[in-house]
């Protein structure tokens, strides 16, 4: 930036301090371009460059009374932009950190659910193996293969009522086995 351009920006800011809206609009437009270039130079092309630009413009607006017209404008302006850039970088890091933490927590929850599922299946298989042979067969056909009572009765050569009684007793026995031998909550 040439000294003339720096002086021109200072002049626009001085007019802005006096309430000249048109000069102020021109100044902010120029400053938005300068801010974008500054951000690109410092951190490259980032998705949040426009956030920095807008926050810098707001900060310039709120701090405009602290610029002394007798002093150069550009160092004042870049101090504001630098501070906003640092704040936005910190915020982005926090957001990214939270996103990573959320993803990690979700992965962990999925992994735990899968482990619990495997453990539950393992416990159930072990419990079924403790049942009598007929009860085991009834449970396998009725609950695991999801066949109807009529099919199970036909397959095992039993009456439907008998299958119901065996299934009921087998379920009671399974509840007892899982309730007393397992200390996991499913």
């Amino acid at each position: 930036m040439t000294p003339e351009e720096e002086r021109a920006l200072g002049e626009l800011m001085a007019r802005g301090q006096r309430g000249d809206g048109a000069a102020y609009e021109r100044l902010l437009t120029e400053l938005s371009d300068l801010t974008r270039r500054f951000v690109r130079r410092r951190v490259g092309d980032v998705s949040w460059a426009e956030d920095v630009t807008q926050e810098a413009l707001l900060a310039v607006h709120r701090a405009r009374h602290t610029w002394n017209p007798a002093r150069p404008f550009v160092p004042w302006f870049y101090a504001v932009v630098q501070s906003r850039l640092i704040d936005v970088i910190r915020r982005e890091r926090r957001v990214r950190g939270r996103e990573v933490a959320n993803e990690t927590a979700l992965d962990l929850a999925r992994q735990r659910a899968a482990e619990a599922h495997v453990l539950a299946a393992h416990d159930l298989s072990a419990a079924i193996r403790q049942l009598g042979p007929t009860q085991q067969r009834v449970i396998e056909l009725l609950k695991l293969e999801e066949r109807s009572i009529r099919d199970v009765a036909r397959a095992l050569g039993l009456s439907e009522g008998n299958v119901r009684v065996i299934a009921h007793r087998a379920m009671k026995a399974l509840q007892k086995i899982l309730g007393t031998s397992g200390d996991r909550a499913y």
Partner: protein
Amino acid sequence: MTVRTDDLIAALARGLTPVVPVATVRVRLARWTGAALVTLAAAVWVVGARGDWPAAIGEWPVQAHSLLLVIAGVFGALAALHLAVPGERRGWSQAWAVCAALAWLAWLGGELALAAGTGEAAWRVGVSWSCAFKVIAAGLVPAVVLLVMVRRSAPLAPRAAAALAVLSAASIGALGAEWMCPNTRPMHLLVWHALPVVAATGFALLIGASIVSARAAGDDVDLSG
């Protein structure tokens, strides 16, 4: 942000109000120093100077304490005012303030170490809330004045600005307490003169940012068009 930058610029220009540029850091430091001196004098006058006043000011430990506290007070205020204006940050003013405050604490620690050689009585400390009150009495107005000055500017590092402002004012308070309290025992000075300064500065580090970074009234931006 979901606002377009062009819309933001138009809104800022549309709602623009004239502003009076704040006075330079030097001018504001001079104003604050004046306010601090008046408060200090008033506090000493109201509470009363220490009984051995004319003689005490000639003693070199009192002179050393006073000099270090004046440096911490003035440079702390200067550093806080520097931090309150974008582009004015000066590392040397912060360094002078912090180093002077630490030197004062180290000096008191050294006096305590010397006194400890004379017996266990050096470690004894009585209750003296009146001295903590004297620190507050002499430091409160300078603290409020300086925090208002910082708040009315635009501190880009509000936490540091608030902490330095409070360190500065509390140093003036401790200076006032030194001139009002005749107790020269190092343990008393450390607990009832220095500890309030450290506590106030620590407190400002914790909550000071919210005090000085509040937005100036009427500066909300209307984006409704």
